[in-house]
């Protein structure tokens, strides 16, 4: 026990509650409560209902949920592929190229996502690269934004990976491709799945760049939530927000199971 006295421990737990509950837990709780509310005029909500969820799982809202899922899966997979590739290249490259890659993949994190959105809008709104108004430009924006996280996660893990494994494999006669597929990627799997989860969660919640780019036919969930609350449909927005959290959490948990299996081998 780090804190020996029982009273001291109680005080610390209390402080934690006082700090944690309002800042972190309360907003979530309020959203969950609001999602079941028919009205909220007094201190507490009234007219409990499931109607918000019925609306959230039909029509435009359901379409927005699917749009978000497809966008996030596509962006995460592309980001993971590109980020892993670049991270492994940086690991093998000389110091010069490594610096360039490290720098390039910090940019999307350092630059505000609104700026990334604007950049893509300008770059892809003229032929021959006319992506403006298509789902592809939303997926592209998400990919650009999350690849940096995939890159950094895999890059850190690749640096920690003992080169003796790859060398032992090469010494046994394995070609570089076989070393990659049978040794390096399996050993990097925990960080790959962690990166995939992170990319997915970031993409599911992305609003600012999406806002500048999305065509009416491809409205991700955060945009839909924003639009609903903007129109005053707070409770429908809350139900959608709960769905967004639940879907993200479900995918993160599923991906986490892959990770633990790799760890236990």
């Amino acid at each position, binding site marked *: 026990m780090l804190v020996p006295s029982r009273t001291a421990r109680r005080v610390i737990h209390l402080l934690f509650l006082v700090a944690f509950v309002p800042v972190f837990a309360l907003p979530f709780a309020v959203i969950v409560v609001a999602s079941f509310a028919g009205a909220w005029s007094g201190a507490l909500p009234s007219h409990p209902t499931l109607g918000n969820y019925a609306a959230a799982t039909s029509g435009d809202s359901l379409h927005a949920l699917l749009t978000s899922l497809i966008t996030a899966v596509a962006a995460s997979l592309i980001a993971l592929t590109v980020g892993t590739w670049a991270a492994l290249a940086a690991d093998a490259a000389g110091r010069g190229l490594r610096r360039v890659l490290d720098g390039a993949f910090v940019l999307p994190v350092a630059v505000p996502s609104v700026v990334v959105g604007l950049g893509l809008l300008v770059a892809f709104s003229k032929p021959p690269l006319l992506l403006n108004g298509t789902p592809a430009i939303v997926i592209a924006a998400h990919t650009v934004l999350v690849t940096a996280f995939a890159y950094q996660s895999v890059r850190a893990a690749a640096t920690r990976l*003992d080169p*003796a*494994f790859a*060398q*032992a*494999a*090469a*010494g*046994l*006669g*394995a*070609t*570089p491709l*076989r*070393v990659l597929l*049978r*040794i390096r990627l*399996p*050993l990097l799997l925990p960080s790959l799945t962690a990166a995939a989860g992170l990319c997915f969660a970031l993409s599911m919640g992305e609003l600012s760049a999406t806002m500048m780019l999305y065509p009416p036919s491809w409205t991700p969930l955060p945009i839909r939530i924003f639009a609903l609350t903007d129109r005053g449909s707070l409770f429908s927005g809350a139900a959608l927000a709960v769905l967004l959290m639940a879907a993200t959490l479900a995918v993160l948990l599923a991906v986490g199971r892959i990770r633990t299996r*790799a760890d236990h*081998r």
Partner: protein
Amino acid sequence: MTALADSAVEAAAAEQPAGIRFEDVTVSYHGTTVLDGLTLDVRPGEVMALLGPSGSGKTTALRSVAGFVEPERGRIHLAGRDITELPPHRRGIGMVVQSYALFPHMRVDQNVAFGLQAQRVPRAEIPARVADALGKVGMADYARRHPRELSGGQQQRVAIARALAIRPRVLLLDEPLSALDAQLRTGMLAELARLHRELPELTILYVTHDQIEALTLADRIGVMRDAKLVDCGTAEELYRAPRDEFVARFLGGANLLPVRIVGDGPRAGTLAAALVGPDGVDASAEPLAVTGGGVAAGERALVCVRPHLLRLAGDAGLPGTVVEVQWRGAVHRLTVDVAGHAVTVDAPELKAPPAPGETVRLSVAAEDAVLLGSGRRG
């Protein structure tokens, strides 16, 4: 695809014993030379130990054979073929590194099978060869375990089995016993010796900083120091006539006595030498016959005498005062002050050992008192 076919062919041609030849192999990191002009011939079927203190460049020499470091100068030949430019996966060499580097995500049998799959050994043959390799190191019962479920000694056996499974002509071992405790080490040493008796055509290059390992296993020993090979020969050659002080001290406690050459010795190839005391004057009137040449009269040199080759003689030889007597079972170890030098003498168990303070005379045969650096060819 031709590359793959090639490496399979190279591995299949493993029947012919193969030697390793280092030709002026030089490796630098960031401008620091860590292997300096290594020239060394490891003969086919020989066990060669590279012995030296930590940081002397032994691992670097080994890794240059495996292809993990690129020499900035010099060539490496395997079985008469220049492999300096060959990528590691086409060299067909077995290597066991200090950390073993067993693949943690694969079972023991999968680890051993990995090289066979990489070498495109027909799928049907793989299980038998895995079993054979694991059997050789006594690990057949552990095939389905993961490396983390094995002790250090067991991991080491698996690493050796994995390296041997591809039937390499050359096996590189980098301090394979350093991670084991003393008792396991002795047992493993005996097993490595047995393994080499079973595979007499296998050429082994063995890196260690432990002279016991080198003396036990190796047909010849190369001694490394500060990136250079300073001496090379059979254990007996190195022990009896080391090339310099470092080799003499590194290979087990030789007495090194400063002498001044006073003339020719009683026979061809010998010289007469007078012992030089710590204060620089010739301390003994009676010159010592030593083996060696190429040192002019009047010059100073070091003479190397192994403790067990000194005899307590009646009335001839170097006079000295006994400082300490230890009984060590089969021998008495005496420390004798000879002209200010502490000389160690291992005498076969004495009936009446001298007491400290007594004066004794030490004699040594001319062929057992060797001038450093002049005892052997080149």
